[in-house]
């Protein structure tokens, strides 16, 4: 049976579990950072991203309900994170919709799940399942370390491009500005909670597994946006001509 890792060793293992799977390196993220996308692509991104991050407070609520009273630090973190998503300022999904509207789509289209890819719907389902069913430290590892902690590294590349190349105003892209910094802190506090409360080798192992799965899920979600909207495969209805 595996031995319990020290906190520094466990932290390093968590960080390594993301490496090689970072969503910032997925094709859609790279094309965005390189200024190769159009406003229409950003609109499609927003229509998908809403269905991943829109229920984030719901995911955290399920984790909260699975967290014992004794883990006050974890409960406080989850509650604060939920509050920031929904109430502390402009609701985060409203900031996302503001950006979407600046890209030419509508609130109705953004909220219509039929406009999300199957991979996006799968990511949302994974988040619900993990938050409902896993130990609170494991679910925090999966959603906060595996998914949320990647946000600053993605948006710090994308935000300047939106201002400088595409001419969005700071108000239109506030969604990105906000998350660059807030998710630095959420990510760090997430690490602390996982390090503190994953107290058995089995829990540590499960945390590492689900951080890997989370990073893979976010990578796949981001890659699917490129495959669907930027470089789609020929449709089955109109197959490419067969070679003679």
């Amino acid at each position, binding site marked *: 049976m595996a031995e319990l890792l020290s906190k520094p060793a466990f932290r390093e293992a968590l960080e390594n579990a993301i490496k090689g799977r970072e969503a910032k390196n997925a094709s859609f993220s790279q094309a965005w950072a390189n200024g190769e996308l159009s406003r229409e692509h950003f609109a499609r991104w927003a229509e998908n991203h809403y269905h991943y991050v829109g229920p984030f407070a719901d995911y955290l609520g399920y984790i909260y309900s699975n967290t014992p009273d004794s883990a006050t630090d974890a409960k406080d973190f989850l509650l*604060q994170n939920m509050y*920031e998503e929904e*109430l*502390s*300022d402009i609701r985060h999904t409203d900031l996302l919709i503001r950006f979407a509207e600046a890209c030419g789509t509508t609130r109705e289209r953004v909220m219509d799940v039929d406009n999300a890819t199957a991979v996006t719907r799968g990511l949302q389902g994974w988040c619900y399942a993990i938050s409902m069913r896993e130990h609170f430290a494991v679910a925090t590892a999966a959603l906060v370390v595996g998914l949320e902690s990647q946000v*600053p590294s993605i948006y710090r590349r994308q935000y300047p491009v939106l201002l400088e190349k595409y001419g969005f105003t*700071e*108000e239109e892209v*506030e969604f990105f*500005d*906000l998350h660059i*910094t*807030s998710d*630095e*802190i*959420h*990510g*760090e*506090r997430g*690490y*602390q909670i996982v390090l503190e409360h994953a107290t058995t080798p089995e829990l540590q192992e499960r945390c590492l597994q689900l951080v890997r799965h989370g990073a893979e899920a976010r990578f796949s979600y981001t890659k699917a946006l490129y495959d669907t909207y930027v470089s789609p495969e020929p449709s089955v209805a109109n197959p490419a001509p067969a070679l003679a």
Partner: protein
Amino acid sequence: MPTIRFTTSDREVEFAEGDDVNLLRVAIRNDCGIPFKCASGNCGTDRVRVEAGAENCSTPRRRERERLGELFDQGYRLACQTYVSGNVTVAWDPEQVGLDEGSKVYDKLRQVWLAKDDGG
């Protein structure tokens, strides 16, 4: 290696040359004691006075400029909003609380709860 010096808690943290690091994240990770609450640039609880190395701090974005107002001209930054790329020294009042009074944060909460009262 570049160093962040936290005068108030008498701590120093080094980071890798070429990196730029979030000031509050470094403080939290290394127990340096900067008070904080929202970490979103709203409450202002984590404001620090930059005693040296302001040129090694990131350019403030709209959210931070608006929240700090004239405090920015007096050398303050919000730790959660600031990235550091070289030697920096910061200090703060250990008793400080947020700049929240009268802010939109409280306005928003007030609206939420007043709406509930109205609904009976």
